[in-house]
């Protein structure tokens, strides 16, 4: 990771400005120029160092619904179930985890009423029950991993 990539990660996880030429403004902060910064962000997205560049929305404050789901899937059936779960556009994140509950995914929907039918559909398609674990309380979030 070069100096500019490190600066993008460490100093540009928030605060991208609301101005006409935000890349130029951010580039000046980071000691580079607009074209170099745009090219760098493109490269980092293409390489997978960044998953996204833009506004990060809070689903619940947007009026949507958000929940964490877990499934206990036999290893022999894991790929089939993961593909069925991933096929739903409402499934935003899905991770394999080393545990008896080995499939963990986040469901985001525009309205809370959409969550239950979606989970029922996943249970019907896969043949396995889904453990739904909605967040009841959030304790501070400031995602600031350093590079």
């Amino acid at each position, binding site marked *: 990771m070069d100096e500019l990539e490190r600066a993008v990660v460490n100093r540009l996880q928030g605060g991208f400005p609301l101005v006409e030429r935000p890349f130029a403004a951010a580039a000046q902060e980071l000691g580079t120029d607009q074209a170099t910064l*745009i090219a760098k962000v493109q490269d980092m997205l293409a390489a997978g160092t960044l*998953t996204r560049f833009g506004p990060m929305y809070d689903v619940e404050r947007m009026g949507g619904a958000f929940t964490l789901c877990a499934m206990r899937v036999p290893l022999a059936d894991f790929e089939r179930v993961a593909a069925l779960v991933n096929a739903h556009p409402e499934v935003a994140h899905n991770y*394999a985890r080393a545990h008896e509950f080995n*499939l963990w995914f986040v469901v985001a929907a525009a309205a809370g009423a959409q969550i239950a039918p979606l989970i029922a559909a996943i249970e019907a398609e896969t043949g396995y029950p889904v453990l739904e674990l909605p967040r009841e309380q959030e304790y501070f979030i400031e995602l600031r991993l350093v590079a």
Partner: protein
Amino acid sequence: MNATDAGIVRATQAGLPLVPEPWRAVAESVGITQAQLFARVAAMLADGRIRRIGAVPNHYRLGYTANGMSVWDVADDAVDALGAQVGALAFVTHCYRRPRRLPQWRYNLFAMVHGRGRAEADAHVEEIRALLAPALRAHDVLYSTRILKKTGLRLA
């Protein structure tokens, strides 16, 4: 959420266009002026609908290869006070209280920890354990072994 805000979300949830004037491009696609867009986005930042605007890094690519979801069975009357302390730890990126689902699931506090290697992550978990000890009944750590899907949330 009004139709304009919904349009802005649709136009930006996968990311901003990587051009010199990205906000102008978004405003044009939504059918509003850039000044109107600035006002709407500023309002969404102010009321928390937008958490922040910028780069969303991939933990793994930053060297944070050990990404553990630590889960804790904490006494109900202590979980909020202790959860706030866990959430304030610098290495914890997300911390939530969630319902127990007995008998399959006993854990009511979740904290995501990230380490450059399992040893670093385990040390973080140990720090949380010490903090929770007075009210702690059981805990576990679920390390991710594979990202199966990771997309921006689709809201609108």
